[in-house]
């Protein structure tokens, strides 16, 4: 269920993105679940189609959802796919640290700080 409060200080685009993201990462919407069309969701929520389209575009750019032509927009994210992407990003990070001749312990420290786990 998605809810948009037009009187909220948070822009509708952000409200929609956060709710969809939460439902996908919590497993409420699983990989392969079909999302409503841009037009339908915009009409139901009383917001501009461009707002929904922008939200879908951002989620698509981050690999959370994907557009499959006539099959519409579907959820692409799953815990497995997220793990794979994180592993890939970690490998890229490690390669870059090595190329720069950095200290692995210091690199890890910086990564932890960036993740907010320090």
């Amino acid at each position: 269920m998605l809810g948009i409060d037009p009187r909220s200080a948070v822009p509708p685009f952000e409200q929609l993105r956060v709710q969809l993201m939460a439902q996908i990462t919590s497993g409420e919407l699983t990989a392969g679940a079909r999302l409503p069309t841009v037009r339908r969701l915009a009409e139901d929520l009383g917001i501009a189609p461009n707002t929904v389209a922008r939200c879908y575009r951002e989620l698509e750019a981050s690999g959370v959802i994907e557009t499959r032509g006539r099959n519409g927009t579907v959820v692409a994210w799953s815990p497995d796919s997220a793990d794979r992407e994180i592993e890939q990003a970690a490998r890229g990070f490690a390669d870059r640290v090595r190329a720069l001749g950095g200290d692995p312990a210091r690199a890890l420290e910086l990564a932890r700080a960036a993740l907010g786990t320090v």
Partner: protein
Amino acid sequence: MFWILAFSIALAVAGVVLLLRIATATGRARRADALARRLGLAIPPQLQGVIESRIARFTRANAIGMLLAAIVSAPIGYAIARATGDDLWASRGFGNASGSAVNIWPGAGAALVVVGVFIAASAITLRDDTGDEVRFARSTAVGLDDYIPRAQLVLLRIGTIGSGVLAALLAAVAVAAPATLPAALPLIGTGAIGVIALIVFEVFGRRIVAARQPSGSPAELAWNDALRSTQLTQLASAPGLLGYYSLLGCAFVVPRMVELGGAPGWIGGAIGLIVVVLIAAVGVLVLTLVWGRGNPQTHFLRRLWPEVAAQNAALATATTLAQARVDEGLAPASGIDSEPGAAALGSGAPVTDSGERSEGGR
């Protein structure tokens, strides 16, 4: 002609009665309450007015459709009666004798299509009266099979296409042996209108599912789903009934065609018997497949609001068990909720209208 006139008058009277029933606030409330109980979905007090007006709108469209259908079906029935050489005022029953009830089927089919179109129009043109408030929508796409069981969809498509093929076959036979045309005409008409009804269902059904559902709360969205399910079920009844009646008509029409074609009477009788057996088998199959997974009227609850459906089912089971204990003298009768449906509705609504997110819907 007697039958088609009787049918048209009955349709018009039913339409007027329907209009009268929603003419008063009490009538509208009673109708909404009956639907709520049938579907197992509570009407939150703050939504009572909105839901009642939507049900009244749907009922009005249904009633106006019936009145128009009464006018449309009469000339079709008249044309069929004239073309088949029917005695215009005879009221002899089934079969294909003069005054046959089979002759009204194309007109009755056209009436069902007209009513369906009116219902679809009222569903598609639902006004957005939620205002500048919190709006709710489902995060997944929905399809026809979320409102009508897939088995029912498959069977009505097969049945209607089958009746269309049958109509084409009968038309071919009638062209080859023109003497059989008067007997075949009602079924050719029924099959053709059945195919039109299926096209109307497929086109308008998809339009209804794709139409917006402006909802100020999850409970209102659940009720929009409930009304949509009722409208789609009614729209699906036209092709479903016409397909089935076409098959049924074969049992009466084919033996007559065989007789008119000059073949021995026992061949027609055998064909009629086979058709009756087939119809019985199809009927059992339809009932088993459609009802096998529960009441088709509450299919949308199981698909779109599974927690509400589960809660209703649990309450029904508990009530049955409690009743059994009372019957066995193990518990006092006062321990049972006298209106299990009402209790289920009270606690089973997806969510209150407070604007909180529902956990019950998908």
